[in-house]
């Protein structure tokens, strides 16, 4: 295993120490339980947004804490959802009195841990709503399984909802917006190489020199199928068409119902993409794929979107939701409306994403 680390068990702790030293004007770091939070938290009267998940996806989520995005992020061990006490503490720390939105990626672990945390927070009198992100079209069936994973759309929802909270949206409105972002975003990823979990010390899976894995998640979990290596154009076409042509997808998710004071099942349906849609195109590096390759993918994606009548109105290109040093990419398309475009353009000032003032 070749990594710039010390002991595997210290990776997350030392990473957080580095972040605390590097960005003191943007974030603070709390240890045991571990979470990164806005330097000026709590922001009075503003809805706070908290997310979290396993480490190894940097800059997500810790790198997205700051003005105009997340109020706090809870990093678990590498690829392991964080624990309820992290989320609870983070939630308490950043609540500015207007309530807290939990943005949760759809993995059993994340859901169970975040639900426990939300229940504890409710018990302490804090308003918490949760929105699930489940956008990974590589996972087909939702009826009898966990359903789609949360991938690329997570980053986009954090940016857009963060801007909305900054603008003064109330908790319900931020949650509704997050739900809207989720059902309008779809993602699919692929890997050229595996990644190596520091604690494990060996690649999670073995890929031949001429093989790749399609429909990969962000945890080094295997994809839906393995195939012979293809060209960037062919790979982009496979991912883009899977995303664009994905039919209406419907699933039941659990959300907290404030009026009833209980978790309720909510049925959500993704509207399929259609000609004339305005989209944000997000070409993401899995971590080990360098910057020279991403515009090659974007170029083909642009061509395909044009052919399909989708108009790319914004884009994001780079390593934003990664899988350690895995080489590969994912493509996310998010259907945009004017509200979302405005919020996307709003200033953001975090270690990982920064524009405006």
């Amino acid at each position, binding site marked *: 295993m070749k990594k710039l680390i010390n002991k595997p068990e210290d990776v997350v702790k030392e990473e957080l120490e580095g972040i605390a030293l590097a960005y003191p004007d943007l974030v603070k770091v709390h240890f045991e*339980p571990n979470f990164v939070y806005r330097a000026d938290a709590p922001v009075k009267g503003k809805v706070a947004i908290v997310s979290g998940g*396993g480490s190894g996806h940097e800059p997500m989520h810790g790198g997205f804490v700051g003005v105009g995005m997340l109020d706090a992020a809870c990093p*678990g*061990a*590498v*690829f*392991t*959802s*964080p*624990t*309820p*006490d992290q989320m609870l503490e983070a939630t308490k720390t950043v609540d500015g009195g207007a309530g807290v939105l939990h943005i949760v990626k759809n*993995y*059993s*672990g994340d859901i*169970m*841990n975040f639900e*426990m945390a939300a229940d504890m927070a409710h018990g302490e009198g804090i308003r918490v709503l949760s929105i699930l992100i489940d956008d990974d079209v*590589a*996972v*087909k*069936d939702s009826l*009898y*399984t*966990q359903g789609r*994973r949360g991938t690329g759309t997570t980053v986009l929802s954090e940016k857009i909802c963060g801007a909305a909270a900054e603008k003064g949206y109330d908790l319900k409105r931020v949650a509704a917006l997050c739900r809207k972002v989720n059902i309008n975003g779809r993602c699919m990823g692929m890997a050229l190489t595996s990644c190596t*979990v520091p*604690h*494990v010390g060996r690649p*999670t*899976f073995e890929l031949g020199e001429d093989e790749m894995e399609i429909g990969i*998640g962000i*945890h*080094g*979990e*295997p*994809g*839906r199928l393995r195939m012979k290596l293809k060209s960037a154009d062919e790979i982009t076409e496979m991912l883009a068409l899977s995303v664009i042509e994905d039919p209406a997808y419907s699933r039941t998710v659990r959300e907290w119902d404030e009026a009833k004071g209980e978790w309720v099942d909510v049925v959500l349906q993704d509207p399929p993409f259609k000609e004339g849609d305005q989209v944000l195109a997000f070409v993401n590096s899995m971590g080990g794929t360098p910057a020279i390759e991403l515009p090659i993918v974007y170029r083909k994606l642009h061509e395909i979107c044009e052919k399909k009548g989708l108009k790319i109105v914004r884009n994001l290109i780079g390593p934003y939701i990664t899988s350690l040093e895995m080489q590969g990419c994912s493509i996310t398309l998010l259907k945009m409306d004017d509200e979302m475009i405005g919020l996307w353009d709003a200033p953001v000032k975090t270690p990982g994403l920064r524009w405006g003032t």
Partner: protein
Amino acid sequence: MSKIMTKRDVIEWLKATAAVLEENRRYLTDLDSPIGDADHGINMDRGFKKVMSQLPAVEDKDVGTILRTAGMALVSSVGGAGGPLYGTFFMDAGKAVAGKTELSDEDLVLLIESGLKGVVRIGKTNLGDKTMVDALHPAVEALRRAVADGVDTAEALRLMTEAASKGMVDTIPMLAKKGRASYVGERSIGHQDPGATSSYMILKTLMETLASGHRATG
């Protein structure tokens, strides 16, 4: 009803489990590679190390408190799916035997059954989803039946462990419907579920602890 398990046995069980999971850290992680994210052994080992660090503070307390403390330690240190599931298993098991310092056969059935119910409640798991429940459920059934039939404790625990083992192996041909393994669809077939495997280990360790415990105390 004779007491078959003391407070000390419970503590021994947790300690022995911690040792077994440390030993099998790599094995459980390897099982989690083809159909998961290669962390189950790491997670369980980290969790039970935390349990070990919390035990001294409650060694004098009742079985319920000991188990609930273990569960809370797991919830706050494991993360992933394993944290809430095994955390709930032990917290709910502890609640079921709250206040007791010695357990009868029936208490033991109640303890494990309550743990299983907690897992199912939190995980919304069905039998055959290719999870730890596929090991835990037949084990609870076997134990309950044996105790109801008046089988002696050692044999009842053997039957429980055997059922857990069979349930664990039976996950191999299953198509995963819960947890990360469900994402790989058909490719989950042919692999043994890591959670079912750790559950089998925990129950087997229970059997062994009580066997050696009984030997020790005559």
